[in-house]
């Protein structure tokens, strides 16, 4: 019945509340489309995990309803929901081998042994963990455990995949690699994915859409651009730091990356090619009324479109084709005699451009 219900909805939660004492969820309403990579972003204790555990059916909401693929599943047991979950600390069953862990869900569904074997091999090949099948989880590294937890979750071909802080227990190198891996798996399998994180870089790099949570409430939902450029509350502005976040395409030559973002080109000393996300801290950008003569590789001119007094610091937005947020002290803002509409030059070093 398309037209009556939005037929692309995979998950819909309506006014869901759940009080667990320590953590709570307050009147959450959300719609997630089929095939979407959806991010739930918020600080520790915001109620992110309880939200996805409620979607999985671990808890029954105190009030409100949960729909999966147009069916009301509010009172359905987790086992009948076809929603898989990966926790931050993986929760691999320590008494089973890697193979036993990955096949766990299929065994519950009484799938044929040979088929379990075939599916296990397929997913482990895809994730590059075939050599670990006979090992026990206790002997594996964080990145390996993470891949096995993901394999165990997706091998049952769930309708929805829930990821609870999947990258935060790993070192930064592994995080970058696995972040790309998650994007690849999602592209390949197309499973509707809900990814919980407190890292806005992760959210920006991976999310089709983002919901920001705070104090058990969902306070903004939108595309990464909407949420980061137009935060609807001071909390979000502070939380995401109003950093300069962009997506672009990077080409590497002579050990530097040149990233094309909406027609302008930014140079970075981080080497990475392809589709990337870029961030530049507002305090790393120099601003001047005249041409800036410095060693900085990136230099643009534009017009101040917005000025915000944050106490000792003034945040200005300079439109150079892209809106750059520039932070400067109140003293220098006054000395430079800047105001909305002023033509200025901005510059920043290639080393200040972070690619992720």
């Amino acid at each position, binding site marked *: 019945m398309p037209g009556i219900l939005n037929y692309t909805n995979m998950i819909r939660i309506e006014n869901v509340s759940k009080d667990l004492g320590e953590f709570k969820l307050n009147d959450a309403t959300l719609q997630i489309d089929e095939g979407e990579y959806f991010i739930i972003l918020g600080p520790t204790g915001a109620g992110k995990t309880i939200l996805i*555990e409620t979607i*999985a*059916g*671990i808890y029954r909401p105190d009030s409100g309803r949960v729909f999966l693929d147009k069916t009301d599943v509010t009172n359905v*047991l*987790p*086992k009948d*929901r076809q*929603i*898989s*979950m990966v*926790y931050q*600390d993986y*929760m691999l*069953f*320590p*008494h089973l081998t890697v193979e036993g862990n990955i096949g*766990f*869900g299929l065994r*519950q*569904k009484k799938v044929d042994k040979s088929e379990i074997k075939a599916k296990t091999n397929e997913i482990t090949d895809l994730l590059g963990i075939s050599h670990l099948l006979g090992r026990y989880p206790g002997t594996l590294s964080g990145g390996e455990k993470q891949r096995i937890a993901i394999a*165990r*979750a997706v091998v*049952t071909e769930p309708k929805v995949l*829930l990821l609870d802080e999947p990258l935060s227990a790993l070192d930064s190198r592994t995080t970058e690699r696995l972040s790309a891996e998650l994007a690849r798996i999602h592209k390949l399998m197309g499973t509707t994915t809900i990814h919980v994180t407190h890292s806005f870089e992760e959210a920006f790099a991976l999310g089709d859409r983002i919901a920001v949570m705070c104090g058990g409430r969902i306070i903004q939902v939108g595309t990464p651009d909407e949420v980061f450029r137009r935060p609807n509350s001071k909390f979000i502005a502070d939380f995401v730091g109003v950093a300069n976040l962009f997506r672009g395409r990077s080409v590497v030559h002579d050990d530097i990356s040149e990233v094309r973002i909406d027609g302008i080109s930014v140079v970075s000393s981080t080497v990475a090619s392809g589709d990337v996300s870029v961030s530049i801290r507002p305090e790393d950008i120099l601003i001047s009324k005249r041409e800036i003569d410095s060693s900085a590789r990136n230099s643009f001119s534009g017009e101040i479109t917005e000025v915000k007094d944050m106490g000792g610091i003034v945040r200005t937005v300079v439109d150079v084709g892209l809106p750059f947020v520039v932070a400067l002290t109140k003293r220098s803002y006054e000395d430079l005699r800047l105001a909305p509409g002023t033509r200025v030059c901005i510059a920043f070093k290639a080393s200040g451009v972070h690619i992720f």
Partner: protein
Amino acid sequence: MLIKESTLKIVTISVTLLLAIFILSLLSGIVTHTSLQSLLASIASKEIRFAIKLSLITSVISTLMCIAVAIPAAYALARYDFFGKTLIQTIVDLPLALPPIVAGVGLLLIFGTTSFGAWLSSSGLKFVFTPYGIIIAQFTVNISFMLLIMRSTFEGISPRYEYVAQTLGCNPVQAFLQTTLPMSKNGLIAGGIITWCKGIGEFGAALMLAGAIRMRTETLPISLYLNMSCGDLDLAMAAATIMIIISVVSLYIFELYARHTQLY
């Protein structure tokens, strides 16, 4: 000034050493009281063989009963919040501190003087002065101990293992049986061994409820008591020696598993 062994180290180690010597001399006093030959002859006697058999049967059954009750009760206390939980927890821990002989008096009153006891007795379950009484006495004294070990074992295992199992197709019971329970294996073995060992040695409560009847409710500790009373030292020492062997072996197995208990 030269570095010397500290006084603290010397004093504390000496105290420990003296304690070990004290315990060892008790045990060797019993084991060496009679000649090996008469010890073996006593162990082979009809009475001691009866006591060994009765002790083994009652202690194994009471240990299985403790496990069967402790697993669900420990799970409830470890995982759920419910009305009156603190009070209930205190009550079920009480037998840990209660003298066994007092528990035995209570059991004797329940089974010997109430209409509930009379009803059980008329339906064939006689606990007073029977081997059934020994089993129920061992169960009563040891259940809290098993419960304590299982509760701390379950508390050490994150409930999220069960959550994951549930999302992968288990109902809550299957999830428990396939994750938390097998992961509790070491706690279960360690708790079971020590409960069994304590069951073998149970005296006070069993004496009150089942009495000390030769060749009827005569477990190893009861046999020791009876034979000491009537001066048959050979038989008494045989019973004591067997109990020493059982404790040493049990303690070894307990240590083996308790030390390898991982927390997940």
